[in-house]
């Protein structure tokens, strides 16, 4: 099934969530958890799109979908508990309900990337919005060139999707490098920042597309490193975050210069945001 960019017929009350059951709850690390929702209607989405998730009586936050796009009857989200709403979502268990609106926004260019080498660089929980793209690439592996994933995290204890990282590491024709910022002696992988690992991946910069998700400082540093490596700025895609109340372009909160992160993004082509990223407090 081809990815659907936007709902064809938007709901008549776009701010009203559908209460949706949690079917599975997994703890990824001390702060991070993943749950699956079973939406009433099949909900096709593009890797990189997000939903608005409502914790009953508490509030609503935007969360990228972290599961596979070929199972539209299941919506997976991976969340770090940092505020009241995410903490409330973290107290849920299978059988509980979450208010769901979405999917929203523009996702990763998985279709446009066909035939290209694809680099995916995630920092911290930024790996979660990339995971649907990784699943997509693995499922349609023959349609793409070389694939490389770089993942940076604070410590080995902060890594998410640990068992899948092991699977991906063993997957033929799939490059994965994981770097943590600090580690004890038991960690035998890379230690350091994520961007220097770019030099360890095999890809043709003239024929590569890169997707980055992580903190904005990491996005800026990584996009520059990719440009230095010879990848055109129009072939670099970054997922951005801003305050968001509506996800439908009405509340005004997520503006970034002329862009609405909710409807023009969250995934933006780097050449369209690079000048804006240079300004503080834009």
């Amino acid at each position, binding site marked *: 099934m081809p990815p659907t960019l936007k709902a064809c017929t938007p709901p008549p009350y776009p701010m009203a969530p559908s209460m949706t059951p949690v079917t599975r709850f997994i703890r990824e690390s001390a702060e991070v958890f993943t749950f699956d929702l079973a939406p009433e209607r099949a909900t096709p989405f593009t890797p990189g799109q997000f939903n608005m998730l409502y914790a009953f009586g508490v509030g609503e936050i935007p969360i990228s979908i972290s599961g596979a796009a070929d199972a539209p009857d299941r919506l997976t989200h991976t969340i770090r508990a940092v505020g009241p709403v995410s903490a409330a979502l973290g107290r849920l268990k299978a059988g509980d309900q979450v208010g769901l609106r979405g999917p929203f926004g523009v996702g990763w260019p998985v279709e446009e990337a066909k035939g290209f080498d694809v680099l995916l660089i995630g920092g*911290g929980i930024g790996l979660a919005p990339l995971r649907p793209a990784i699943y997509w690439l693995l499922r349609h592996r023959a349609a793409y060139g070389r694939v490389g994933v770089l993942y940076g995290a604070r410590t080995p204890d902060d890594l998410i999707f640990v068992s899948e990282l092991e699977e991906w590491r063993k997957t033929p024709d799939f490059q994965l490098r994981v770097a943590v*910022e600090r580690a004890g002696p038991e960690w035998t992988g890379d230690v350091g920042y994520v961007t*220097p690992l770019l030099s360890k991946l095999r890809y043709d910069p003239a024929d590569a597309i890169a997707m980055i998700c992580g903190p904005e400082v990491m996005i800026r*540093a990584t996009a520059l490193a990719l440009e230095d490596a010879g990848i055109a700025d129009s072939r670099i895609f970054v997922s951005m975050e801003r305050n968001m109340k509506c996800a439908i372009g009405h509340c005004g909160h997520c503006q970034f210069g002329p862009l609405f992160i909710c409807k023009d993004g969250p995934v933006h082509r780097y050449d369209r945001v690079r000048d804006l990223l240079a300004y503080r407090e834009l």
Partner: protein
Amino acid sequence: MKDIADLLRHHPFAEGLDEETLALIAGCAKNVVLQPGDYLHREGAAADSFYLVRHGAVALETFVPGRGAFTFLTVKSGEILGADWLIPPYRSSFDARVVELTRAISFDGKCLRGKCEADPRVGYEMMKRFIPPLVKRLQSARMQALGMYDAANA
């Protein structure tokens, strides 16, 4: 068996280096094989050598009482290890522990400093090769110090 200049020639550090300089610095170098668990140097010890890692991995770490050793950088194939030999008082500022079997070219720091002093052209060639990786590591260290992965959201 390949001679040391030959090994040197195949390391990214020596890329573009003329044969004369290559031969000159090879005079300060030797081939080493390092076993997992070996320490190349310890914090506070004399920094009398530096390494070009050919294959393998070395962890740069510091020990925190009560919490154990923390690795903050791994140095792998094709990279350079050691900067303290460049500046007085030539003292190692952290531990360097071999993580996996590592083959490297080890340089006598004093010998190399002498050759750089004697011929500034050689010294400049060396600096051009040391400064970029060191500056990049400084940039990465800044990002790591900021701990910005915490600021990422899904």
